């Protein structure tokens, strides 16, 4: 039976009411954006990992050939290892520096705002500017501090140009750019710690390091965990400083997975292996996300 006009209006009005009361309208804008710029390109990247495509012709299905190609490329493994080294560096040094500086900011009452600004300043400078300043004004043997020291008989080499030091030289620049962010985040977390707990520890005669070890760090553990998990994800996405400073060189010494993927895609015009490397990057991100969600669930249950 066809609905009467008033019946149809009633159905429509029911729909509108249901829609108004449901969370869907609130989700839709973000959902649409995520589907358009994350889900669809993400699915296309997954599909591309199984196709051969030069970016211009018709793609052809090749099964697992792209994975065979990247696993046969020794540069893939050195890049993966560089990502692991990068992760290890960023899980330790800037987090330790951030915790140290954050706790000192908590203790120091005077100049606190000034130091926060100083620590945070490198974070807001554009990546390319930071990279070019370090490359041209610090590391360069002609125009940088390294070159200037030569005038005083101190012969240093540009660390970006030697395979054993290149990755660490790039990481140092990123580290300088990054650690202030962690310091400010940890400081903000420390300020949420119950003042009574801190006072009690101080009255009980706890030293600064004991205060840090037994009160402050345990109190902000969720923040530290979140930052560590994000660090793992970000470390596997590291691209900008490597690309600007060394483009993965010399002799692939500072190549990381994202620069390798970029090279496959935009220099070799082989989109398949580029997508396969991108999937490997995502795999590590996925593992980190899995642990993050589990920790969140456990804390939620508690």
């Amino acid at each position, binding site marked *: 039976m066809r609905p009467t006009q008033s019946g149809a209006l009633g159905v429509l009005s029911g729909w509108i009411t249901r829609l108004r009361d449901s969370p869907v309208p609130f989700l839709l804008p973000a959902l649409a954006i995520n589907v358009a710029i994350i889900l669809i390109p993400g699915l296309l990247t997954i599909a591309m990992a199984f196709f051969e495509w*030069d*970016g*211009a*012709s*018709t793609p052809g299905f090749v099964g697992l050939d792209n994975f065979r190609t990247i696993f046969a490329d020794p540069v893939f493994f050195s890049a993966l290892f560089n990502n692991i080294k990068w992760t290890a560096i960023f899980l330790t040094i800037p987090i330790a520096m951030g915790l140290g500086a954050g706790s000192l900011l908590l203790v120091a009452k005077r100049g606190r705002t000034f130091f926060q600004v100083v620590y945070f300043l490198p974070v807001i400078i554009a990546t390319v500017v930071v990279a070019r300043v370090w*490359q*041209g004004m610090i*590391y*360069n*043997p*002609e*125009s940088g501090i390294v070159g200037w020291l030569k005038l005083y008989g101190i012969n240093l*080499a*540009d660390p*970006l*140009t030697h*395979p054993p030091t290149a990755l660490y030289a790039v990481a140092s620049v990123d580290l300088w750019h990054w650690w202030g962010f962690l310091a400010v985040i940890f400081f903000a977390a420390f300020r949420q710690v119950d003042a009574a707990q801190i006072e009690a520890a101080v009255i009980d005669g706890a030293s600064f390091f004991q205060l840090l070890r037994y009160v402050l760090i345990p109190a902000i553990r969720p923040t530290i965990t979140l930052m560590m998990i994000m660090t793992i994800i970000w470390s596997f996405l590291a691209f900008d400083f490597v690309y600007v400073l060394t*483009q*993965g*060189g*010399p*002799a*692939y010494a500072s190549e990381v997975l994202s620069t390798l993927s970029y*090279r496959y895609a*935009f*220099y*070799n*015009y*082989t989109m398949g292996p580029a997508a396969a490397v991108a999937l490997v990057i995502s795999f590590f991100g996925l593992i980190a996300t899995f642990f993050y969600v589990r920790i969140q669930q456990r804390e939620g249950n508690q």
Partner: protein
Amino acid sequence: MNNLGLTVRVSVLTAAATLSTIARADGPITLWYQRGGNPDQQRIMQKDLVEPFNAAHPTTPLTLDVLAGGSGDKKIRMAVISGKGPDIVMTPGPSTTLALVQSDHLLPLDDYIKKYNLDKRILTPVLRTGEYHGHNYALPRTFETMVLYYNKTLFDKNGWAPPKTMTELNTIAEALVTKGIIPFSVGNGDWRAANEWHVSVILNHYAGPENIYKALKGEMPWTDPVFAQAIDVLKDWYQKGWFGKNYFSLTGDQQALLLAKGEAGMAPNGTFSFDNMVAAFKQTGQELGVASFPSLREGVPYPLYSIGTGSTMSINKNSANPDAAAAFLDYLYSDDFYDRISKDWPGDWNLPLTSIDEAKLTKNVSPIFAKTFTAFSNAVAQGNYGYTTWTFWPPATEDYLIHGIEQVWLGQISTADYLKKMQEIFAKELADGKVPPPAPR
């Protein structure tokens, strides 16, 4: 159907056809300049390229967009592949053009070449680098080569002439090392692909263009002893310090300044660095010299210039107005435009025209620039040319050539390993039809 109805319909169809012809003939055409440009260079392009063309073609004016260098070529490629993009398609060289031709995004230019006599106006071997399966799809724009820049003041003081053979080069380089002067002022600090300039030089001037031609045609492997010997020579130069200690740090400006100060004696570099070199020598007051790179093995001709096409010009298959785009190409390859641009911006718009002559060029540019380009053009016209890697090598092989040579220099892999992998990558690209056509011999 009555006669009146038929007449009306025919009239409407005729009017529509006329309108469509007018629509195809009129309207602006677009060019995206792919290599970036500072404000001065953008003004020069407006003054020398856009304004004269638009004055002569008011109904089909050219709109020029300057894209950022480094990523401009990728933007153009993406736009063209998606069926849009500019009417005139500028690419960074034949290997990019080849991909667009194979995916059917460019228009064959044969009729326009005939109409505007472009085959008489552009040097044949360079023009033919745009040919695929008997049709021409791309005109060469930036005509460049590798040369040997040297500090003439330093050379004159020591009574040296620019070397023509390996023995002469060795003598001068060793004398420079003894004096504490770097033989070659080179580096890849701001352009990592500069590695391939040196591979290009060694392959052309040691292995020779005949062998390169055979290898590019797949008739000889890259693992052949003559290429291995060539790479060994390059490795030896690096390892005995001829490239100095700061190869991976030095930028183009710094290299030019070291040469101009006499802290380095020579610099194998491209004609695209002419501006840099002239500016540096102006700063120090010393004199710049330019010569063809020496022949490094008996049987390899001297002088020899390798052909480099730093960019090409094509017409988009989806252009609404290909005739107007072709008329623009007619203006671009004219003596009128060349005279204007070589005065204002020598180097980048160095078109491979048959009409280039030293006397005419000297009116607009420095005598040394005029002499170099005339020698280069004459050598190409006489068939005395080689092949630059960035023009004739397919993309993945070129990429490996650039990065792998660093491993050879730093002793991480052997010459044999390097060439073996290059051959593997090349063989696949050759089978996939990705090798651009080499200039004929």
